[in-house]
């Protein structure tokens, strides 16, 4: 039957929720890294015991944690107390240094601002090597580690895409989405708020903006190559050229790896939102959680509704069974929805109100796993044998 392990990053620590394949009874472990903000945790698809976590704080900066036993114990890679203090290398698992001269990006007021590392938003373990992991960081850049997160090196080609013109969204200027193409190890998609989506076809050396077809109504140039506030990308591993996007406003899809996007918002009550996910076994079944607007970051009409399309967009149905349908004013952040790959695909979401919900049947029925965690920033799911 299999089982699942749900990795939840919150504003005040991390939690691991575990259940068997029925997904009815849950074991809650945590808080791990209590008091710290945990932006994201994700397990290696090659070694389910290997989990990476981004832990950060305004006081103490960035810390990277790694578990080799499924989250029971954690270590800072390379941070062991040395036997010989004189010759020990300094800890570097939290050392994110831009290649060359960092350069500048645009600031909110139109002035320039130097690129400064602030935190890791997203960790994406490699599909081919358990010691390789990518980090999307603020200020926006992509880093890669090939030694299990002990040391990091920027892939600077991404910031060669006119990064001096990139500007932060309200939450900062960050690489928040990293999609690895399971059929082509050289292809990676990333998304940056507020610069847009980008693709590499040579393993991260060179990049191309892939924003044609996107519309943002306040951009002076309606056909601008960059400058879009992309909130999230998602793909199904069986069709990696089909990518879905939650843009600031608008839900979009491309059938040609980002060369052209089309609007598939269809009958959504509002097409503003953050997360977007694809069903594990149905490449045309996708999920979004619309919120009222960019000025009111909570769900529409006081109802937490997940919208499902079985047609790859345009035709949407609300999923409400088991979700609060009155007096609800939460949001679901961009990294806070995920799926498992059990036979009956489970859908998971975490809210800014601290609830984590599961639907064990593809969205038809929902149940809260926990009600009162801190603000949920990220949810990832590991499907275990």
């Amino acid at each position, binding site marked *: 039957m299999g089982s699942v392990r749900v990795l939840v990053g919150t504003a005040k620590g991390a939690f691991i929720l575990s259940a068997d394949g029925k997904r009815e009874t849950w074991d809650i472990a945590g808080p791990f890294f209590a008091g710290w903000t945990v932006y994201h945790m994700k397990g290696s698809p090659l070694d389910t015991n290997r989990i990476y976590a981004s832990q950060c704080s305004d006081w103490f900066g960035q810390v990277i944690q790694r578990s080799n036993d499924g989250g029971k114990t954690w270590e800072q890679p390379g941070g*062991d107390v040395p036997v010989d203090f004189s010759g020990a290398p300094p800890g570097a698992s939290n050392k994110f240094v831009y290649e060359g001269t960092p350069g500048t990006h645009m600031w909110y007021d139109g002035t320039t601002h130097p690129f400064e590392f602030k935190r890791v938003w997203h960790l994406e373990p490699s599909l081919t090597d358990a010691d390789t992991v990518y980090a999307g960081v603020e200020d926006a850049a992509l880093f890669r580690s090939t030694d299990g997160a002990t040391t990091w090196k920027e892939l600077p080609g991404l910031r060669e895409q006119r990064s001096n013109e990139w500007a932060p969204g309200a939450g900062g200027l960050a690489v928040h989405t990293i999609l690895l193409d399971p059929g082509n190890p050289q292809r990676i998609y990333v998304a940056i708020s507020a610069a847009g989506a980008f693709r590499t076809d040579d393993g991260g050396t060179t990049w191309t903006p892939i924003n044609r077809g996107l519309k943002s109504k306040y951009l002076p140039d309606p056909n601008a190559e960059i400058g879009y506030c992309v909130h999230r990308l998602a793909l199904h591993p069986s069709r990696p050229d089909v990518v879905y996007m939650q843009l600031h406003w608008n839900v979009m899809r491309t059938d040609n790896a980002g060369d052209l996007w089309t609007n598939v918002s269809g009958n959504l009550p509002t097409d503003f939102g953050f997360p977007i996910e694809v069903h594990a076994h149905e490449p045309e079944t996708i999920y979004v959680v619309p919120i009222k607007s960019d000025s009111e970051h909570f769900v529409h009409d006081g109802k937490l509704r997940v919208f499902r399309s079985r047609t790859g967009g345009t035709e949407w149905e609300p999923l409400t069974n088991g979700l609060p349908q009155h007096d609800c004013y939460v949001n679901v952040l961009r990294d806070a929805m995920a799926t498992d790959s059990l036979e009956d695909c489970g859908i998971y979401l975490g809210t800014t109100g601290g609830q984590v919900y599961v639907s064990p049947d593809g969205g038809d029925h929902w149940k809260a796993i926990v009600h009162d965690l801190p603000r949920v920033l990220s949810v990832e799911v590991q499907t275990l044998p």
Partner: protein
Amino acid sequence: MTTSVIRVMLPYHLQNLAHVGPEISLEVEGPITQSSVLDAIERRYPMLCGTIRDHVTKKRRPFLRYFGCEKDMSHDPPDTPLPAAISSGTEPFIIWGAMAGG
């Protein structure tokens, strides 16, 4: 070169990262300054690298403060000799988080 044993007090979250209690003792070689004390901390506890000061610039993280002998030494040049009471181990060098909540 002389070696001194210095006492250092760490804030709660750094105690947890380093798996130590509120106060640690360190052997520090040469002149006792903020820099030499922090160098010794990072050699002994590499998991604290980057959490007190920047890896590259060595600048103090903005929300941390350095205290000792009832003085705020946060803005002193990092190579200024620390007070004799700290150098002798009579008083601790205190690293503390700025007060802010939420």
